[in-house]
Structures are given as structure tokens and as C-alpha cells.
């Protein structure tokens, strides 16, 4: 293999409280396809952002063509020939294909008028279209292209920039099988032209199919590399897991009771062909694990009445109920702590007090007016109970830390009478201390008879906090695990769509 043109040496990046990258080294040679794998939060995205010049590493050296530097800027990265095909495509659907490929660097003519030289633009795009075997024209409006075709446009954009390295971040996560196949052929074609590719994916069979080698990240460190000959799903999974999970588990005070919430054959709009069934029992925390995009949040939104349920039934305490709006869910005692805390959970520049009372204002009402004294008393009580660290309950929640913000979201629901509490990524962006407090609060709730459904992508949390686990894969439940079966291996197997019986430990 030829000399590497790009080398990362001992790259580290830490954020307050978190080490995202810990002395990561990686070499990229021309024409090489590297698969970058690891769990959610292993540091893959951060590493790629360092390469793209978006994140400045706190330590280490980046060597491009032998020149060493501490960090790259976005311009450096482009000049070095590093291009991205993002998970969320960065394209303009109000432009055509050629317009997207040349966005920001359109060929111009007409002197000071700087008119766009359309003829040249289309002429320049034609060979790229041919090279990638595209079945659409240079003047096709982007809005009419499928997701797979849009990816090709992104790749053309990269090629027109003379990219030597194309980084693809989960490019196949929303593609059909046939489209994935075609992308694999495109990858092979690029490789044949000497373009290197870093391929981030959760789908191990794609790694088997196209990678020259796989680099495995865990907790911000490179924990292993597999050559083409060593590649096997078992070997990759073995590397992705294998860390001592801190014991977070506090067993419930009493064995779980009857099931409180039954979700029967629920179908959401995101995965129209797949149905989910699960039940959460009184006094238990049911963990819902799975990879990002496996349909867990969509399920939670449907149960809470944000999105309509396409099919299936929701049964609460044995009675089928209809949930057409969040209001209806709340009236039934089903509450949701949403994944997007700032966008959906809180009014950021409003006080703690008013955030807490918002879903339950009717009960603070006296002659149509808000009884602010009672409202304030409750906020003070919740602040004590949840140990919300804030100078005052009149403080705007936007100025609090992530952990304290999350506690305010919890306080909203704890002031009411929860039967079922759905928490979606309850400790994302929350510091360690507040995490423990939130886990403690969840346990106290289940001991008081609440049923909790905890969606989480944090392996430590999923295994350490749940009493039982359901794992989702592409819109369906791929398996349930009891505490005795809890292992990172089993969760990952199910999360990538394997069964644990067939490929057990």
C-alpha cells in the first residue's frame, strides 16, 4: 500500500466533564476504504469533525502530506482534499444538481456582472454524472431526487473539489437494499480512482462488504483495528464492547406489578411496515435500547400523542385508550420527557416556576387567574426534592446547566400524578453528579408505583439502570432481555438486528 497522505497522531479532545477523544491515531492512504465503527457516543463524529476542521483538538498532531499542524480549519480541510457526505445532507432542494455541486464557487462570466456561467457549469458536471453512473440529469431539480440520488450529488460535489478523502457518516441508514448496493459499487469505483473513504456505519455486513480495514472506537479511544483478513461481525462486536460498566443498579423495593402500559402492534409513520409491541409494568424501569434512528423516539412521540399512531393500540391499565394529542396523554397520566430538551421540553427564557406549572396550570387556577403563591410554593418544593441548583425559582431555565434543566423538565411531571413516565435520553448532556440524582429519582418513582419507559443510547445507562430491556432495530423490537441476560454484547447484537440465540456468546 502506498504512503499515507493523512495522519492523525494522538488526537485528544475534551469537553468540560467529558473526554470525547483520547489519543486517537489514524492513518489514511490513497485508495483505502476504512470503516470506522463504535457505539453511539464512542467519538466517531467528534473525530470526523476534527478532520473537517470544525472541532479543534485539545492535543495531538494532524499531518497532511507530511506537514504537521495542531488543528485544521474548514478551508485547510477542503484544501487537503477532505470532503464530507453528511448524514443530514447539506444540499439545497431549491436548486438543480449542477447548482448544488458548484454552490459557493459557481463559474462566472460577464465581467463585473458576475453572472453564472450555466453552460460551463453543466459541462463540468457531465463527466461526474457519467463517472458515478447517475441516472439523472445535471439540470434535474434536487427536490425531485431520491435520498440515494442526493447522496450521489454530495459525492459529485466532493469529487469536483478534487477530494482525496471522502468521509461518509452513516450513508446507508436511510437507503433501501438496492440503493445500498449501488452505493457500495460507487465506493468501489472511487477506490479504484485512488480516492480514500472513511465509512462510518452501524451495519457490520457493509463493513464486511467494502472495507479494507476497520478501526474500532470506544469511549474516545481506538480499541482495535482489524485488517481485511481479520474482519468478522463477531470480532467487531467483541472490540466494540468489553468495558467494565460501573454498577449503577439499584433494585426496586418490590417486584414489578401488573402491566400498566401495553403498546400493541404500534406502527409509526417512520417505519410503516413494522409494528412494535411491548408492555411496561408497575414499578419497573423498562429500558428501550437501540441505535440512533431505530424508531424509539418516534414510538415515544406516537404514544404521547405528538404524532398520530398509524396502526395498533395503546392499553392503559387494561383499558384501550385513544391518544390524539399530548393533552389526551397527559390527562391519562402518560408523560414524556422529550429528547430535545431545549426545543420541546422547556421555555428557556421563562422562570423555573412557570416552566414547572405549565402542563398543570389549570390546577393552580382560581377564578381563571393563576394562584402565583401556590405555584411558587410548588416550585420551591420541587427544587428541594430534585435538588435543582439555581439561585432562585424565578431564574430563567436557560441559564441553568444541562442537568438542572433536565431536573426542571422532570419537576413538571413529578408535580402531577404520573402513571407512565417516558424518558427519552434522560441524561444526555447531563453531568455525572446530576445523572446519579436523576437515576435515584427514577427509582423512587417506580417504588411509588410509576411505570417508566427509558429510551437511551448510553450503554452504561441502559444496562445499569433498567430492570428489563427491550431493544429496537429498524422500527421493530428485536428482542427483550431480563437482567440476568444483560450484557453489552447481547444489547449490541440485538441493536444491529442479530438474534442472541443464533450468535450467542
Amino acid at each position, binding site marked *: 500500500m502506498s504512503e499515507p497522505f493523512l495522519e492523525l497522531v494522538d488526537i485528544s479532545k475534551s469537553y468540560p466533564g467529558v473526554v470525547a477523544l483520547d489519543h486517537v491515531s489514524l492513518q489514511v492512504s490513497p485508495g483505502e476504504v476504512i470503516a470506522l465503527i463504535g457505539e453511539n457516543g464512542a467519538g466517531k463524529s467528534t473525530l470526523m469533525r476534527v478532520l473537517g476542521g470544525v472541532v479543534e483538538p485539545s492535543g495531538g498532531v494532524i499531518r497532511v502530506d507530511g506537514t504537521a499542524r495542531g488543528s485544521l480549519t474548514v478551508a485547510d480541510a477542503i484544501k487537503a482534499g477532505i470532503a464530507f457526505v453528511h448524514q443530514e445532507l447539506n444540499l439545497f432542494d431549491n436548486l438543480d444538481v449542477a447548482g448544488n455541486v458548484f454552490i459557493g464557487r459557481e463559474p462566472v462570466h460577464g465581467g463585473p456582472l458576475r453572472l453564472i456561467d450555466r453552460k460551463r457549469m453543466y459541462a463540468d458536471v457531465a463527466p461526474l454524472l457519467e463517472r458515478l453512473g447517475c441516472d439523472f440529469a445535471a439540470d434535474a431539480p434536487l427536490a425531485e431526487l431520491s435520498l440515494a440520488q442526493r447522496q450521489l450529488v454530495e459525492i459529485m460535489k466532493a469529487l469536483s473539489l478534487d477530494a482525496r478523502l471522502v468521509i461518509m457518516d452513516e450513508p446507508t441508514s436511510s437507503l433501501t437494499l438496492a440503493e445500498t448496493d449501488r452505493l457500495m459499487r460507487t465506493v468501489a469505483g472511487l477506490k479504484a480512482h485512488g480516492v480514500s473513504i472513511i465509512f462510518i456505519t452501524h451495519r457490520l455486513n457493509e463493513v464486511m462488504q467494502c472495507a479494507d480495514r476497520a478501526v474500532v472506537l470506544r469511549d474516545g479511544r481506538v480499541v482495535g483495528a482489524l485488517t481485511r483478513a481479520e474482519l468478522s461481525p463477531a470480532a467487531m462486536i467483541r472490540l466494540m464492547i468489553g468495558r467494565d460498566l460501573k454498577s449503577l443498579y439499584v433494585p426496586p423495593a418490590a417486584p414489578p406489578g401488573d402491566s400498566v402500559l401495553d403498546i400493541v402492534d404500534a406502527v409509526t409513520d417512520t417505519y410503516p411496515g413494522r409494528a412494535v409491541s411491548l408492555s411496561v409494568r408497575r414499578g419497573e424501569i423498562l429500558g428501550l435500547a437501540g441505535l440512533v434512528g431505530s424508531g424509539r423516539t418516534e414510538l415515544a412521540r406516537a404514544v404521547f400523542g405528538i404524532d398520530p399512531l398509524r396502526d395498533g393500540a395503546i392499553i392503559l391499565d387494561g383499558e384501550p385508550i385513544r391518544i390524539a394529542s*399530548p393533552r389526551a396523554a397527559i390527562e391519562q397520566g402518560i408523560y414524556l420527557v422529550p429528547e430535545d430538551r431545549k426545543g420541546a421540553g422547556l421555555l428557556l427564557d421563562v422562570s423555573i416556576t412557570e416552566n414547572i406549572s405549565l402542563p398543570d396550570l389549570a390546577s393552580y387556577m382560581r377564578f*381563571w387567574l*393563576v394562584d402565583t403563591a401556590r405555584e411558587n410554593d410548588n416550585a420551591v418544593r420541587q427544587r428541594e426534592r430534585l435538588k435543582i441548583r439555581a439561585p432562585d425559582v424565578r431564574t430563567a431555565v436557560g441559564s441553568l446547566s444541562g442537568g438542572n434543566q433536565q431536573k426542571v423538565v422532570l419537576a413538571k411531571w413529578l408535580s402531577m400524578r404520573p402513571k407512565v413516565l417516558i424518558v427519552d435520553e434522560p441524561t444526555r448532556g447531563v453531568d455525572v453528579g446530576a445523572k446519579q440524582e436523576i437515576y435515584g429519582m427514577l427509582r423512587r418513582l417506580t417504588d411509588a408505583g410509576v411505570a417508566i419507559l427509558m429510551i437511551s443510547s448510553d450503554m452504561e445507562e441502559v444496562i445499569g439502570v433498567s430492570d428489563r430491556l427491550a431493544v429496537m432495530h429498524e422500527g421493530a423490537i428485536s428482542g427483550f432481555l431480563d437482567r440476568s441476560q444483560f450484557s453489552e454484547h447481547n444489547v449490541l447484537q440485538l441493536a444491529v438486528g442479530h438474534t442472541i440465540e443464533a450468535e450467542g456468546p
Partner: protein
Amino acid sequence: MSKKDLSLLVLILVVGTVVALINPRFLFVGNLSNTANQIGLFGIFSIAEAFIIIIGGIELSVGSVIALLGVLFIDLIVNHDVNWVVALAMIVAAGLVIGLVHGALVTRMRIQPFVVTLCGLLIYRGAARYYTEDATAGFGFGASFPTLEWLAAGRTNVLGFPLPHSVVALAVVAVIAWVVLHRSVFGRYLFAVGKNEEAARYSGIRTNRVIVSAYVICGGLTAFSAILIAMYTRSISPAVHGSFYELYAIAAAVLGGCSLRGGEGSIVGVVLGTVLLQVLQNLVNLLGIPSSLNFAVMGTVILAGVLGDQYLVQRRHRVGAAKDRVQASVAAAPFERVKVE
């Protein structure tokens, strides 16, 4: 009263003092009474507009609604001999329906409020002109409604000051609106929807219902002010009556601290904003500035006010950020010590 309201009040007093010093006629009872009347008339539909701006919407048809409903009101009582109490109820009901339609178009059909109410602006103006065949609607010779005229456009002597009844009407509307917006559960919902509709929905608020209600309230209040304005002017040329009034309303709301992004604003501020606009109007008249410059003066003052406010906000942020930095370094210190040990 918030800091913002207070600084607006100070600005009004400064402008008022300057005008009074240059032209003492500003303080004549007659002039003050007339200005107060204008404030009363403009204040009511400005409050109506504020309800919409607070939920993050915009209402551009205020002036056209005032023209159309004004024409209809006069036509009802003058030409159709409808009892004025009944006519008043009918006109207010029409305003509520207009608000309901706007609200439904915004929430059900998901059309942007700007577009919905821009169409309203054109449609109602056209309808008013067509209805009267572009002729001026007014009270014919001898037509007289003493009770109504006294109620709507009369003045009562209070301690030697002829207090226009429009000011009384504004006071009543403002007090009710203040309680609704700043003290009631519904008011909380209005602000919550304006701040973050998504989070409001996740908290179980029926956001669509709240938005429609705001448009209905706005329509009703606008209709009420349309009647007062019609009774004050006594004749309506539908091509120009009430034109640009929506912009007065938006200007008053913005001056009063409403954010066009929604979720912010106070009734006190909106009333003060209206006062400032009318004092400026008066200033143009009294200082002998050509009345053609009227709008230019108003625009300049609003711009200066908003710029000044922006400056103060930014300065507060800078000071706040500096304070945070100091606190952060103090807070971080113990951890660093741990690391060193």
C-alpha cells in the same frame, strides 16, 4: 412596571417636555384632550394587535377591518334603522368571525399569518369600497343618536378636564387585557405558545386553540374600536379610512416591548407605545413641521428607540458574560486543585 416600560415612560416625558417648552400650546387643555382622544382610539386596536404579536403572529388587516366594519355600522343604524345596541352587537360579532376565519386559516390550513392577513387587508378594503360604491358613508342630515354619540365620542368633565370617553374605553380594555395576559392561565398559554410552540404542545397545551382565540380576541377588539372611530369621524370615505392603522398598531406594540418573534410584550408597554406615537403626531403639528413629514418623524423615532434598546440589551449581555466568566473561573478552581493533588 418593567424596566422597558419605565424607560418608555421617561422617553414620553422627555419628548413631552421638549414640545411643551417649544410650544406651550401642547399643554392647553383642548390639545391634551384631543391627544388623549386619539390615544384612546388607537390604543384599543393596538392592544388587539399585541395579542397576535405575543403569540408570534401578525395581523395586517386591522385598518381595512376598521373601514369595512365602520361603514357597515353606520349603514346599519342610519339606512336600515337597526337599533344601535343591536348594530353594535352585530358588528362586534362580525369582528369575532373575521378573527375566527383568520385563526382557522393560520392553524388548520397552515398559511402564514402575514399572508392570511395581507389578503384580509386587500379584501376588506375592497369590500368596503364596493359596498358604498366608493362614496362617503356618514350620518345624513338630521340623523341623530344622542346616547350613542355621547357614549362613544363624548367627553365628561373630570376636575376641569374634558375626559374623552374613548380614553375610558381604553382604560377598561387595558385593565381587562392586562389581567388576561399577565395574570390568567390563558395569558400564560399565549406567552408559552409565542415563546416555543413545540414545548407548549409537549406540555399539553392545545396550541391551535390558543392561536385561534388570540385572533378572535383581536377581531372583537378591532370591531369595537371600529365603532368608536366611526362615531368620532362621523363620516367614512372607505378608500382611506383607517389606512395604515395596522402599522400604527404594530409600531405601538414594538415600541412597547413586544417582540415580533413572539412570546414577549406587556399591555402597559403597548399603551405607552400608543401614547408616544400620538405625542409625536402632535409634535409634528405643534412644531410647524410640514405634516408631509409626519411618517418620517415617526419612523425615525421608532428606529432610534429600537436601536437604543438593542444597545442596552447588548451592553447588559456583555456585562453579564463578564460576570459569568469571573464566576466560572472561581467555580472551576476547586476541581483544578483536585487534579493537581
